[in-house]
C-alpha cells in the first residue's frame, strides 16, 4: 500500500481533475432537441444556447450573397412544426434541401427565429445509407479556442 502522503496527494490531484471535468461539463453543455421538443418548450428555452436537429424543408433556402447569410426552415419528418433558422457563416457542402441538419445557437421566441452559430449538415443521399462514415457531420464555423 502506498504511504498516506501519497494517498492524500493522489486524491487531491484526482479531485482537481474531477472538478475540472464537471465544471467543464456545466459550462459547455448544450441541450439537444428535436424541432417538436423545442416548439413545446418554446418560451422557456428562448435565448438559451441549444442544439436542434431536423431536416431542411425543400425550397426554403434563401441565400443572401451580400451578407453571406442563409435563411431556411428546419422541420421533422413525421411531425408538425417547423423552425425558421438564420445563419451566417460557412455553409457546408452537404447543406441542401432535405438534408439532415444540426444547428447550434439560440431561439428567440419574440422573433420566432433560431439564430444559428454553427451549422452541421449530413448528406441525405445514398452514400451513407448503411454504415456511418465520419465525414458525414461536417463541422463548420467551429473554432478551437
Amino acid at each position, binding site marked *: 500500500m*502506498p*504511504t498516506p*502522503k*501519497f494517498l492524500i*496527494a*493522489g486524491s487531491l*490531484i*484526482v479531485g482537481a*481533475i474531477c472538478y*475540472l*471535468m464537471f465544471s*467543464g*461539463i456545466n*459550462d*459547455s*453543455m*448544450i*441541450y*439537444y*432537441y428535436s424541432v417538436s421538443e423545442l416548439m413545446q418548450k418554446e418560451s422557456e428555452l428562448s435565448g438559451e444556447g441549444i*442544439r436542434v*436537429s431536423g431536416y431542411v424543408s425543400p425550397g426554403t433556402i434563401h*441565400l443572401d*450573397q*451580400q451578407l*453571406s447569410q442563409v435563411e431556411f426552415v428546419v422541420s421533422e419528418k413525421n411531425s408538425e412544426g417547423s423552425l425558421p433558422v438564420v445563419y*451566417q*457563416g*460557412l*455553409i457546408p*457542402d*452537404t447543406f*441542401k434541401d432535405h438534408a*439532415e441538419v*444540426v444547428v*447550434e445557437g439560440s431561439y428567440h421566441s419574440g422573433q420566432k427565429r433560431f439564430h444559428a452559430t454553427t451549422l*452541421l449538415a*449530413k*448528406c441525405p*443521399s*445514398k*452514400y*451513407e*445509407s*448503411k*454504415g*456511418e*462514415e*465520419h*465525414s*458525414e*457531420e*461536417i*463541422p*463548420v*464555423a*467551429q*473554432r*478551437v*479556442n
Partner: protein
Amino acid sequence: MIELGHYCLIACFLLCVYGTVAASLGGYRGNLPLVRSAENSVVGNFVTVLVASVSLCWLFLTDQYQVEYVASYSARDIPTVYKFTAFWGGQAGSLLLWALVLSSFAMIAVLQNRHKNRHLMPYVTVVLSGALTFFMILLTFATNPFDTLPVAPADGQGLNPLLQNFYMIIHPPILYLGYVGMTVPFAFAMAALMSGRLDTSWIRSTRRWTLVSWVFLTVGFTLGGTWAYEELGWGGYWAWDPVENASFMPWFFASAFLHSVMITEKKGMLKMWNFILILVAFELSIFGTFVTRSGVISSVHSFALSNLGPLFVVFLASSTSFGLFWIFYRSDQLKSEQRMQSFLSREATFLLNNLLFVSICFAIFWGTVFPIISEWVRGEKITVGPPFFNKVTWPLGLALLTLTGICPLIAWRKATAKNFRRNFLFPLGGGLLSGLIALGLGVRLLVPLLFYSAAGFVVLSIFFEFYKGARARQVIRPTHFLVALKDLTLMNKRRYGGFIVHFGVAMAFVGIISSSFFSVEKLVTLKQGEQFELRHYTLTFLEMVQRSDPEKDVVFARLQVFQNGEETGKLFPQKHFHHKSEQPMTEVAIRSTLRDDLYVVLSSFDEKLTQATFHVFINPLVQLIWIGIGIMACGGIFLFFPDKKSASKVTALRNRKVVRDEAA
C-alpha cells in the same frame, strides 16, 4: 469469386474457433503438438482472410455489382485507385480490413516466437484467435461483404467524393494498423497472467508491439486531422468529433504504458497498473472501431445503432471481465517490490505523468459518451462541444508538457538540491527566456505564454542532455562531437529515442497552441478586382473561371496574394460539381509557410461570376504540428530497434559464461 470469398470467411471462422480451443487445451495440459497445431491455424487464418480480401478487391476492380457491398461503394466511372480503396469505404469492408490486419499481426507474432517465449505462446494464440473469432462472427453472420443483391444494378452508387482523396487512401488502413496493433500487446499481457510467468519477458514483447501500435495511431489520427484540415474547409484540423476522439483515446493509454513500463523494469513497481493500462488500451481500440463503424454517438439521431452494436457491447464486456479476472487472480504476484519514497523522484513524476495521460483520456471519454449517458440518466440529450474539451485538456496538457521536461532529468528515489542544480537550472532558465521572447513578440495571453515557456524548457532540457552526454563520451574516448553524439544516441536508444519523441511533442504543442489562440478568420464578399487585407496578407480577387471535364464542372477564383506588400503568388480556391453527385465539393486553397498558413475557402459566388464570398483564415504555425508529430513518429520507430548496448551486454554475459565454463 463471391463464393470463394464467402467460404474463406467461414473457413477462417472455423479455424479461429479451433485455434482458440486447441491453444487453450494445449497450454493447459502442456501438450506441445496441440499448441503447434493451434499456431499453424493462425497462419491458416491469415491465408483465408487474405484470399477473402483479394476476392473482394477483385470484385471491386471488375465492377461486380451483384455484390451489395460493391454496388454500395463503387461505380463504373470512379478512378481505379478508388475502386481499390472503396474496400474500406463501408462497414463490412472495414471489418474485413480489421480481420486482415489482425490475422497478419497474429501470424507475425506467432512466427517470431516459434523458438522463444514458449511458456507464453499458447495463451498468446488463445487471445489472438479469440479476438479474431469475434471479427469473423461479425463478418460471417452480421455484416458479410459478400452478400449479393437479388438483381444486379447496372452501376454502383459511387464513393462519396469527400473520401476520394489521398488521405482517405492511407488514413483508414494506418489507423486500423494502430487499433489492431493493440490486440497483440493485450495478448502478451494476458498470456503472462494466464501462464503465471510474470517476469519481464512479457514486457519486452508487449512494449515493442505497443510501440508499433502507438506509431500507427499517431500517424493515423494525424492524417485524419490533415484530411479534415485540407478537405472540410472549416479552417481547423481537430473538431473533437466522437470519431476523432475514439482514435485518440487508446493512444493515451498506450503512451501511459510506454512510460510506466520503465518504472516496472527499473524498480519493479506499478506491475498491476501496467496490466490495467494494456487492458484499457485494448478495450478502447475496440471501442474506437465500434464508434467509427456504428455511429452510436456521431449520429444525429440517438441510438441509430447498426446491427453490430449489441455484438460489440458483448465483446467489450466479456473481454474486459476476462482481463480483470486474470489481473485479480494474479494480484498476489503483482505487488510492488519497492515503495515510493519522495514526491521529488523519478518514480513519482512518472506516476503523475501516467495519472495525467489517463485523466486526459478519461475527460475525452466522458465528453464523448456524455450525450448517451445524459439520455439514459435524464432522458434529455445533452452534448458538450469543443469548448469542454479545450477547457479540460489545456491544464492537463500543460502539466504533461512540463513533466516531459522534468521526468527524464529528475533523480531516482529522491532528488537532491545538487541534482536540481545540475540538471534543471539551465533548462529552466531557457524556459523563462522563451516565455520572455514570446512576451517580447507581443503574446499577451497567459495560457500561450505558459505553454511557450514549458516548451522552451523541454526543448532546452533535451538539447542539454544530448550535449552533456556527448561531452561525457568525448572524455572517455576523444572523437568529434558529432560522432560522440551519434554513438551516444545509438548506444542508448531508449533514452535518446524518447528525447526525440519529446522534442516532437514540444513542437506539436507550440503549433497547436499558436494555431488555437492566434488564428484569425474573416468572411468577405468581393467584386472582381477588389482587394482586402488580413494581418500581413493582402488578397486581390482577379476573376472567376469555369472549366469542365468529363467527371465534373469546376469553378475557381483566382486570387493574387501579397505578403507585406510583396507579390507572393496566386491561390485558387475552388468548388467542384461532380456530375454523379448532388453535393458540391469545396476545395480549399492553402498557402503554407513555416510561419503561418493562409487558408482560403470559396464560400459562394453569384451566377454571373463577378462576385464571390471567401472565408479566409490565417493559422499560425500549423506546419509545426505536422513536423512535430512526424518527429514523434520517427522517434517511435527509432525506439523500436533494440539497443546496441543491450546486445553487447548479452555478448559480454555470454563471454563471461564461456570463460567460467572453461575455468570449470
